[in-house]
Structures are given as C-alpha cells and as structure tokens.
C-alpha cells in the first residue's frame, strides 16, 4: 500500500534534515572560528 506523507510529517522530516546538514558543516566551522579567537587574543594581550 502506498504511503502518503502528510504535510506536517514532511515538515518535520525537512526540519530534521536541516538540523543534521547544518550541524555537519557548522561544527567544524565553529571549531575554526574558535581557533582564530584563541590566536587573536595574543595580539591584544
């Protein structure tokens, strides 16, 4: 039997995908920004 996806089910599926995708690229990016912040602190000490 064909499964029909409801609107709200689709929305939550999209939201889940969005969270996963942005986390995958966001975590290394934030780590890199943190590395820069640590280095920059030396400049103004």
């Amino acid at each position, binding site marked *: 039997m064909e499964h029909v996806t409801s609107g709200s089910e689709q929305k939550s599926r999209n939201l889940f995908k969005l969270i996963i995708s942005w986390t995958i*690229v966001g975590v290394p*990016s934030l780590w890199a920004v943190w590395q*820069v912040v640590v280095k920059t602190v030396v400049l103004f000490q």
Partner: protein
Amino acid sequence: MSFLSFLDREKSIAEPEYNRWLFPPSALAVHLCIGQVYGISVFNIPMTKLIGINEPVKGVDWTIPEIGWIFSIALAVLGISAAVFGKWVERSGPRKTMFISAVCWATGFLVSAFGIAIHNIWIVYFGYGVIGGIGLGLGYISPVSTLMKWFPDRPGMATGIAIMGFGGGAMIGSPLAVELMNFFKTPSSMGVWETFVAMGLIYFGFMLFGALTARIPAPDWKPAGWTPTLQPRKMMTSANITADVALKTPQFWLLWIVLCMNVTAGIGVLGQASPMIQEMFLFKKFRDMGLDEKEVVKMAAAAGGGFAALLSLFNLVGRFFWSSLSDILGRKTNYMIYLGLGTVLYALIPMTGQIGSIVLFVVLFAIIMSMYGGGFATIPAYLRDMFGTMQVGAIHGRLLTAWSTAAVLGPVLVNYIREYQINNGVPKAEAYNVTMYIMAGLLVVGFIANYLVKEVASKYHHVEETEPQKEMSNSLQMQRA
C-alpha cells in the same frame, strides 16, 4: 556508466517539497574542503625537513620557493579548469560536478602523499597542483551557480554563503593539518605524507556528503510567494547571454579587470600582513617593554600570527556581509564602495605607522580584508545580473582566470617592490608605504573599470528557438544529411 547514473542532472532535480535551505550545507561542504588551498602554507616548514627531520639538509630537502609552486600551480589550474569545464558543469548539474570535484581533490592529496613519501616534488606538483587544481575549479563554480538558481530573490546572500565557506576552508584546514602532523610525527618522519592521506580521506567523505545531498530546482520552480518583477531593476537583465557570447562583450572584460585589481591588491597584502604589523609596530612595542631580543622576536611572531588569523576572520565575514548587502544596494554600488573606500584605506595605512596607532592599523586592515572577501563573493551575482542565469557558472569559470592572474601578480608585486626599497636603503618599517600607494592605484583602475560597466546590449541576448523554428532547423539538418 549506469551505476553512476544517480549523479545525472535529471536525477538530482528536487521534489516540490524540498526545502531550499538544504542546499547551502551541500555547497558549504564542498567549499569548506577546497578552501584548504589557502592554508597549504602550513606544510611549508615541515616539507623543508622531510629528509633532515630536525634541520633541512641543504641540496637534498626541498626549499620554500620550490614548495611555494604547489600553491601557485593549484590556483592557476583552478582558473583554467573553471574556464574550460564551465559549460560542462552547467550541462552536468551540481551532483556530478561536485562528485568529480571530490574525487579529484582527494586523489590530489593521495598522489601528493605518494610524492612526499618517495620525496619527488614533481609528483606533488601533479597531484595537488594539477589533479587537485581541477577539483578546485569544478568544486568552486558548481555550488555557486546552483545557489543562485535556488535563491533568485537573494543571489548575493546565497553566493556569499558558499564563498564564505571557501574563505573558512583554510581556517579549518590549517589547524587540522597541525593536529594531524603532531599525531603522525615520529623520530624518523615529519608525519606529512600520513597527514595528506588522512586529509584526503576526510575531505572525500565531507565532499561526498555535499555531492549526494545536492539538488537543483525544477526549471519552473520559484520561491514561494516570490514573483520575478516584469520590469527588472537597472543593471539587472532578465535575458540570458551564453558563455561564448559573454566573452565578446566589454562588460565581461571590465568585470575581469575589476576582479583582478581587487584581488591583486588584497592577496598582495594578505600574505604580508603578519611581517608588516611586526615590522611597523610590534618589534618597537616589545623592545620598549624591555624584553630581550629573543623574546621580542617570539612575541612579535605570535602576535603577528594572531593578526593574520583576525584578518582571515574578517575576510570570511566580509564575504557574507557585503555580498548580502549587494542584494539591497546593487552590485555596481557595492564595487564602488570596495574599490573607492579601499583606495582611501590603503592610502591611509602608512599614516597609521607615522602616528604609531596599532589600533587604527588593525581596524583599517580589517575593513580592507572584509571588502577583499566581499569582492570575491559578489562577483557571481554581478555576472548573473549582467548575463542571466543560463550559463552563469560557465561565465564565472572564465572570469576566475582574473583570480589566477592576481594570485601571481599580487605577491610578486609586493615582494619585488619591498625588496627593491630595502636594497635602496629604505628602513624595513617604512618599506611598505610605496606598496600601499601602488595597491591604492590598482584599486583606482578597478574603480574606473567598474564605473564603465553598463547593461549588456540586446544584440548579445540569447534567443530561444520557437517550436516552428526548431522543426524547420531539424528538417534542414535532415535534408543536408
């Protein structure tokens, strides 16, 4: 190959319920990886000690200028491959292009690892420079042109996201390489080839995620609630111009000059930022604090590294900020700001040395670097406004030859002028002044080129064949056959 047919353009057309905000992470996954090219200098010192381990062995170990060619070749091949494969990228769609980009980028690392292991620099030139360079070219343009298709209402912001990722690639790649080299280092190995293998595999996985999740919008798709204005804004065409025809327009070459001048000025000083702040301010500052010479050098190097890191952050943020702003101000106005304000700021840099204000120096440089990044990020949307979306990726690819030119011109210009002055008795701390004025001059050239950009004449517009026309040309072809 049928088992790779899932990479085809037709197979990657998004279903109606696809959320367009899912594509920026796919684009970022590729750009964050290939942006590592800007952090390749992290391998410079370790690569000079592959044989000697503790100290370079003269005549046997590689020298810094020899290693420097790896970066230059990679950037040159980036521009060439983006120009050559641009039309193929448009035809094949983002999934196939991003996949092949991932394969080339990872293969480049693996081939280079082999070259490093057997200590043959020509293999590294071929691996990272040529194979990796092709991966760079394909991976750079494909996500950008697709983002513009997903965000026709905010193309500047969309391309800003991807190109910001490219700027961030070095910020991830450099510390990652340091961590990996420390992990793999042994008394008999610098851990460089092992790091190349590990990075190649990590990047392949990351880029594969980007390629497999990439989707293109259906031809008739448009954002919900958005209707294209029938009367487009000034300097924004609703027509399309093919990549081949674009080369015949003055607008393409004016924009080539704009990008080349903006990047030459920026790239020239970016590489010099750390020694510049040290020689203009930090040596004096730490000496005045009464530190011994060894401590002065050590502290200045650490603070100089911090300054370079801060600039890379502004370069990154500028890509998103300025490019998003161009959706409101218009591309031409944005470039007037980059090039006009940039000229003034470059010319003011020597004054900061004269009045001894390190804070003003840092602020001016931070703004300059943000606009350098902004210049990169805004150009795809400028091209879209001028030439339409049909082959914007291919046109962007051809324009990137300006970047390759600037990547050679900028550092050469800065280094040559500086050496010439020092050899003529100019103190090191003042040797940057003339360089700054010359960079300001380059921006004036770019400003004039941007000022001359007008809308593309209608004679260049691509005209779609109507059905009767298509039938007629088909029957003519059959008759000839």
